[in-house]
């Protein structure tokens, strides 16, 4: 089995007295979409934040692309090639769409290539091209999500961390965003996708993990999880 691109080992982390992660382990291999599903407060965002450096791991290690990145500052982790689409999007509301995208490429110095990548983003999400002069905060929720994805891609990452891209987005746009995620992956992008919408996430993912109150309780191929009775009952509702 090839060495995973991202490997989280026994990570314990929390906020003050609250222990949000109680020893989480998870692997993502190059070229995969791996999804982490779970209920509100299960520790999905905390797991991502431990990878992106926004939350310090009290125990355990995070390895990325062969390097130990445990305890790295967020900005150095971006330099390592890990970009994130954070929960709630966190775009710059008072900067234009274009300025948001340019900040995504902050660490790059190849001006010409940045320009071509901008065009790529406008091709990927035509609405961003139409709104390039508009302030980020005036976009709709779904458009902001696209902007957050485009901004993360502008750093030309080796891997994307995405936290609930379906949150606050209308179903039609959600479908479009998930199709884009799958396309990005087909072109080679490795993705760790956190979702509450387990059905959508498992449909495009290769593998999945289920987290409950800070611990991984299940791990399997995505289609197996889709058919797992425990997952069906807890996360997929009764509609199928």
């Amino acid at each position, binding site marked *: 089995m090839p060495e995973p691109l991202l490997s989280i080992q026994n990570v314990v982390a929390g906020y003050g007295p609250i222990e949000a992660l109680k020893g989480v382990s998870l692997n993502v291999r190059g070229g995969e979409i791996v999804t982490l599903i779970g209920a509100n407060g299960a520790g999905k965002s905390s797991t991502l934040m431990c990878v992106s450096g*926004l939350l310090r791991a009290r125990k355990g290690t995070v390895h990325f692309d062969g390097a130990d990145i445990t305890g790295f*500052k967020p900005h150095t982790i971006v330099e390592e090639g890990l970009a994130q689409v954070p929960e709630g999007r966190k775009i*710059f*509301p*008072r*900067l234009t769409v274009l300025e948001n995208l340019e*900040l995504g490429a*902050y660490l790059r110095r190849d001006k010409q290539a940045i320009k071509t990548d901008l065009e790529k983003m406008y091709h990927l999400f035509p609405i961003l091209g139409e709104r390039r002069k508009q302030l980020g905060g005036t976009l709709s929720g779904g458009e902001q999500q696209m902007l957050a994805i485009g901004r993360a891609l502008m*750093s030309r990452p080796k891997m994307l961390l995405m936290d609930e891209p379906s949150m606050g987005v209308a179903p039609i746009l959600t479908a479009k965003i998930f199709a884009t995620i799958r396309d990005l992956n087909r072109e080679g992008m490795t993705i760790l996708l956190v979702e509450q919408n387990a059905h959508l996430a498992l449909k495009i993912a290769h593998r999945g993990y289920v987290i409950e109150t800070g611990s991984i309780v299940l791990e399997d191929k995505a289609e197996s999880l889709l058919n797992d009775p425990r997952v069906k009952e807890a996360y997929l509702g009764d509609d199928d």
Partner: protein
Amino acid sequence: MAGGIRRAVIVHAGWFMLGIALLVPILDPLLPLEWKIAGHMNRIFIFAILGLGLNVVTGYTGLLNLGIAAFMAIGAYSYAILTCDIYPFRLGFWSAMPITICIGAIAGVVLGLPTIRLRGDYLAIVTLGFGEIVQDTLKNLDNITQGTQGINPLPAPTFWGHALNTQDKVAWYYLLLAFLALVVLVSRNLEHSRVGRSWIAIREDEIAATCMGVNPVKAKLVAFAMGAALASTSGGIYAALFSNSGEPGNYDFQISIIALCIVIIGGMGNISGVLLGAFVIGGFNSIVLDKLTTLLQQMGMVNTQNVLTVPGNWKYMIFGFALILAMRFKPEGLLPSRQLKAELHEAEEDERAENARGAA
């Protein structure tokens, strides 16, 4: 659409103002005595440089600094010590100025290093304390700083062997204007540089900025250093202009507050706004009040026994009142940066949208 027109107007107004500024020394002699302003403009230029320094820290990076006057003092005293005959260095203006600017930048880093991780209000308090500490230190070191007398006389800049003296008013005017123009250019370039974009990103959302790869500690330190360097420049020029370091009390909290008013009333994060702010506030401070005092004196209405009749004594009350009015009616300043305008009108728009939804 409207934005483009507005920008064109501002650009034209900018050239127009520059034209006027260039013509002032030529027109000034033609004006009757009580209308002369050229002499006052020097102070306005110096305040504009100070304001542009503060604008880097507070306007671009969003770090409230209440002690910018300390860096102006550091600039003035550095220049004085480097040039005055009573000290061993005895440099000329052109060699002392770059060193003065570097000392300012270093002082900025020294203040920045321990404080950079503080947020908002805490940082404001620490910078305020720093301003007081610098002033007290200068007071206590009176065997070096010459106390209230100030370090003097100081050499003036020389041009091809000719030293400007206080009589060369026109030359001084253009020299200060040239310095201001240079500082404007530096500010512009900074704003559009990589580090400038990282400042704005931090001001907008620090966590999001770090997720773009911005190192916030480094970016803030550079902002502190640049802001302090510009403030130090204003201090060095101030000392050279008056041929005196001034006394520590010249660089007190009120100077920091005037600089802050210039940046806030002019428009945070916008160079033209800061220039306009310096002109409005500096103009009020040194032209309007001054002329008013002379006028009242001529009318025999100033009574030295009664402090209330001296307009200068009303200065800070009028400033305070102007600030309150500005915050109430034009919180983004006279010429706001685009982002600031967007933020302050978001609330209004939300309200409007609410109302529209209610009506539908």
